[in-house]
């Protein structure tokens, strides 16, 4: 079995209302010096098999098809 982590983040320039709200909240809680905050997603997946190359290709296809919205998001795939 292969364990993988996919990280999906917003492209530069795309508005991140969540990040902005968190930034404000952290400042409100007294954390000084917090600059930009951007929020993204991670997916931890378990894949059957042991072929890492195939897993990587599959994961990329999953990102393109479902996990990421490539109109506004980037993704990165990492295999444990």
């Amino acid at each position, binding site marked *: 079995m292969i364990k993988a982590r996919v990280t999906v983040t917003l492209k530069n320039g795309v508005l991140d209302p969540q990040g902005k709200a968190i930034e404000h*909240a952290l400042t409100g809680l007294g954390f000084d010096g917090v600059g930009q905050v951007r929020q993204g997603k991670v997916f931890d997946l378990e894949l059957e098999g042991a072929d890492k190359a195939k897993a990587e290709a599959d994961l990329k296809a999953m990102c393109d098809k479902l996990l990421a919205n490539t109109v506004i998001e980037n993704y990165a795939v990492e295999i444990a």
Partner: protein
Amino acid sequence: MKSAVVLLPGLNRDRDMIAALTKISGHAPVTVWQTDTEIPDVDLIAIPGGFSFGDYLRCGAIAARSPVMRAVAEKAARGVMVVGVCNGFQILVEAGLLPGALMRNASLKFVCREVKLQVVNANTAFTRGYRPNQVIRCPVAHHDGNYFADAETLARIEGEGQVVFRYAENTNPNGSINDIAGIVSAGGNVLGLMPHPENLIEAAHGGSDGRALFEGALELAA
């Protein structure tokens, strides 16, 4: 008979809650703003529904850390009745005033419909206007109402009668564990529930099953 409504940016059922409390008690509630550090002497504090701070990060998370919620916690500790509806429930949970967590609906979709609620515990100040096990109608409108608690917590709140409302007749709209729709604190004076009793209190709403909850809390019940 006096009540207060907590206002936070992004809440949007504040006007519904104010209207309901006004109609039921005959008095307009006072309102307290996110930055207020003190709450006037009232019998009931209501935290309405909505999307406080956009529900960004987690539902109710940012709101739970606002100054006014510290004041709510102090009042609650002194036995003042507190009710959180929908986002208000999420805020109470995030603030640690109620156990568990509210996760994304199992359908992953926002759901707005009428459900049936069983009054599991009619022995609280909020539910004394209902009969034990009475099944009432109530609307829901939420994206994150899927109640979750670990096994130990769940056993405790079930055992202590802290589960107050359960979705009945297969109307659980969100996948909530044990069909839990509303719970009270161990002290019994803090209630959180996902459904919206404030939207079912008069003929124009098509029913008034939600009324007894506020009447009970405001001690107006016959």
